[in-house]
C-alpha cells in the first residue's frame, strides 16, 4: 500500500523526539550487546578450558579419593598407593605421581600473596601437566628425597611477589616457612574460572612436612605408556587399588580420564554460559519493556495527531503500521548498534577471558531485537489504531 509514506511518518515521529528515541535505543543496544558479549565470554571460557585440558595430554588418568562419608570405610589415597601403581602388574602405567594441594600464603619482603594452589608432587608432575620452566630450573627427585625446601612458582605468583626482580634464588615465606625459589613456570593463561598461573609446586615430602601433614593425597596422576594403552592402564590401576583398599563393591576412589575431565568441565562452562546468556536475555527483555513504555507515552502524547490523521481519512491499518514501524525501527536501530558494540567489545579480553564470538548468537540477538519491536510495539500501536476519531480529537 502506501507503506513507504507510512514509514516516512514513522521516521518523522522518531526524529521529532531524538532524546527519547535515543534513550530507548540505548536500552535495546545494551540488551543486544550484552547477549552477544556474554555468550562470547562463556564460549571463550569453555574453549579455554578445552584447550587447557587438551594440553594435559591424552594419556593421563587422575585418581582422586571419594569424599569420606561418616561411618564409611573409605581409605585415603597414600604415597604407598602411588608407588604400588608402578609395578609388574601394571605394564601400561609409566608413572604415578602423588599430588597434595593446599592453600598457602606466600610472603616476600613486605608483599604477601594468597597462592591459589600450592601443590606438592614429584618432578614427573611437570611432565604430566605440560608445564615448562621459563626461568631457573625444576626441582629434582633428589630434592624430593631430601625434602628440600625448594619451590617452583607460577607466572602470577612471580609477578605478584617479585615485581621487577628475578625470583630465582630468592627465599620466599610460605605460611612463614622459608622456601627457596628455584624456577618460574611459563605462563599458561587463565582456564576460564581460575588462573592456572596462580600456583606453586614444591616437592611432595616438603609440602607434607611443612603444610599438609601426612593424610590422604589430593590426587594421584597416572601417566600411561601411550594414549592407546590408557584403557589397559585404567584397568590395571583399578585392580591394584581395589586390592590395596579391599574393595568389594563401591570404590572409595575415582578415576577420571582426560576425556571425562573434559566432559565434566565443559558441562560446567556450559552452565556458566547459559547463566550469562539468561542474564543478558533479561536485560534485552527490560529493553523491550522500555519500548512499550515509550511507545505508550508517544501514543498518549500524540492522541490529537492520531485524531487529525483519522479525520482526514487515515485507515486503522495505516495508524497501526505507523506506530509499529516506529517501535520496530527503534529496536532494529538499537539492535544494529548493539551488534556493533558486542562485536567490538568481544575483541577485548574480559576478566581474563578472550571472548569467542558465536555467529548464531549475533543473528539471534538481532532477530530477537526486531521481534521485540513488533511484539512490544503492538500493544501501544493497536491502542492508537483503535482510538475513535472524535475522542482522539477532543483529547487535550
Amino acid at each position, binding site marked *: *500500500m*502506501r507503506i513507504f*509514506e507510512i514509514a516516512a511518518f514513522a521516521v*518523522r515521529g522518531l526524529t*521529532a523526539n531524538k532524546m527519547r528515541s535515543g534513550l530507548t535505543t540505548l536500552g535495546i543496544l545494551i540488551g543486544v550487546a550484552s547477549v552477544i558479549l556474554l555468550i562470547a565470554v562463556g564460549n571463550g571460557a569453555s574453549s579455554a578450558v578445552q584447550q587447557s585440558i587438551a594440553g594435559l595430554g591424552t594419556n593421563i588418568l587422575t585418581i582422586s579419593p571419594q569424599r569420606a562419608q561418616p561411618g564409611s570405610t573409605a581409605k585415603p589415597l597414600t604415597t604407598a598407593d602411588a608407588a604400588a601403581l608402578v609395578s609388574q602388574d601394571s605394564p601400561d602405567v609409566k608413572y604415578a605421581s602423588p599430588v597434595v594441594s593446599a592453600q598457602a600464603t606466600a610472603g616476600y619482603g613486605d608483599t604477601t600473596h594468597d597462592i591459589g594452589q600450592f601443590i606438592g608432587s614429584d618432578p614427573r608432575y611437570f611432565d604430566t601437566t605440560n608445564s615448562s620452566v621459563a626461568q631457573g630450573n625444576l626441582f629434582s627427585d633428589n630434592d624430593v628425597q631430601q625434602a628440600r625446601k625448594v619451590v617452583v612458582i607460577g607466572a602470577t605468583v612471580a609477578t605478584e611477589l617479585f615485581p621487577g626482580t628475578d625470583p630465582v634464588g630468592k627465599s620466599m615465606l610460605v605460611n612463614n616457612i622459608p622456601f627457596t625459589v628455584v624456577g618460574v613456570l611459563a605462563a599458561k593463561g587463565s582456564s576460564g574460572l581460575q588462573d592456572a598461573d596462580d600456583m606453586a609446586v614444591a616437592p611432595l615430602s616438603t609440602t607434607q612436612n611443612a603444610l599438609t601433614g601426612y593424610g590422604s593425597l589430593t590426587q594421584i596422576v597416572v601417566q600411561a605408556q601411550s594414549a592407546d594403552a590408557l584403557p589397559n592402564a585404567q584397568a590395571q590401576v583399578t585392580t591394584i587399588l581395589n586390592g590395596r583398599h579391599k574393595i568389594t563393591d563401591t570404590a572409595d576412589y575415582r578415576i577420571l580420564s582426560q576425556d571425562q575431565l573434559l566432559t565434566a568441565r565443559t558441562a560446567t562452562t556450559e552452565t556458566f554460559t547459559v547463566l550469562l546468556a539468561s542474564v543478558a536475555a533479561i536485560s534485552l527483555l527490560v529493553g523491550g519493556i522500555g519500548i512499550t513504555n515509550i511507545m505508550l507515552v508517544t501514543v498518549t502524547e500524540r492522541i*490529537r*495527531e492520531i*485524531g*487529525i*490523521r*483519522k*479525520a*482526514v*481519512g*487515515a*485507515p*486503522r*491499518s*495505516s495508524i497501526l503500521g505507523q506506530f509499529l514501524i516506529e517501535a520496530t525501527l527503534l529496536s532494529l536501530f538499537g539492535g544494529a548498534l548493539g551488534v556493533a558494540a558486542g562485536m567490538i567489545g568481544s575483541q577485548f579480553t574480559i576478566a581474563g577471558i578472550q571472548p569467542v564470538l558465536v555467529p548464531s548468537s549475533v543473528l539471534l540477538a538481532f532477530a530477537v531485537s526486531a521481534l521485540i519491536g513488533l511484539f512490544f510495539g503492538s500493544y501501544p500501536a493497536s491502542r492508537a489504531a483503535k482510538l*475513535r*476519531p*472524535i475522542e482522539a*480529537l477532543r483529547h487535550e
Partner: protein
Amino acid sequence: MSPVIEVRDLRKTYGNGDTAVHALRGLDLIVQKGEYIAIMGASGSGKSTLLNILGCLDIATSGQYLLDGIDTGEFDEEQLSLLRNRKIGFVFQSFNLVPRTTALANVELPLVYAGVRRAQRRERALAALELVGLQDRTHHRPNELSGGQQQRVAIARALVTSPAIVLADEPTGNLDTESSREVLGILDRLNASGRTVVLITHEDEVASHAMRTVRVVDGKVAGVLV
C-alpha cells in the same frame, strides 16, 4: 438529483440510564449540492454533535444519514475512514494541523491516505495552498504561522481531495476580525465555485455569508432562515 446530505430522524445519546444525555433528538436536514448552510444554536444544542456525525467522525445512535446518496448506517470504521478521506473536508475551530510538519505536508496528508502518487500529490497540494493564498508559506510549520494562516492551511487540506462537502466547525472562532474575513472570503469563493459548504457558527455576521441558516435547539431543527 439526490441531495448531498440527507438526514432523517437523527438521534445521538451519550451514556445510558438516568445519566443519559440526549444530544440529538430526531433531527432532519437536507442539504443540496452547491448550497452554503450555516448551523446556529446555543452551546449544548447539539450542533457540534450534528457536524461530527455529518463528518463521519462520530456515529449516530439511531436515524438515517445519506452522504452523497450513500447510506452510512451500515459502514464499519474502515469504510468510514474511506468516506472521510474521499467525500468530506473538515475544518476545525482549533485548526488541528499535525505539529512539526510543514504546511505542504499537512495539505498532502489526505492525499497520502488516498494513495495519490508523490508528484501528483505535490501538484494538487500546491494548487490548494495557492487557492488559500499561502503559496509562499508552503515550508512553514504550524508554529511559524499565524492563526489565520493555520486555518487557511486547514481549509486547503479540507479541499485538496475535492470532497463532496466541506464542513467547518466554528472556523473563525479562534481568529481575529481580519483573519476571519479572509477565511470567510475563501469559503465564499469555494461555494461560488460550486462546493457545498456547511459551517457552524454563533455569529450572525458569519451566518450572513450562508444561503440559509439552520437553527438547532435541543437537538432538533427549530427553524430555517433563508
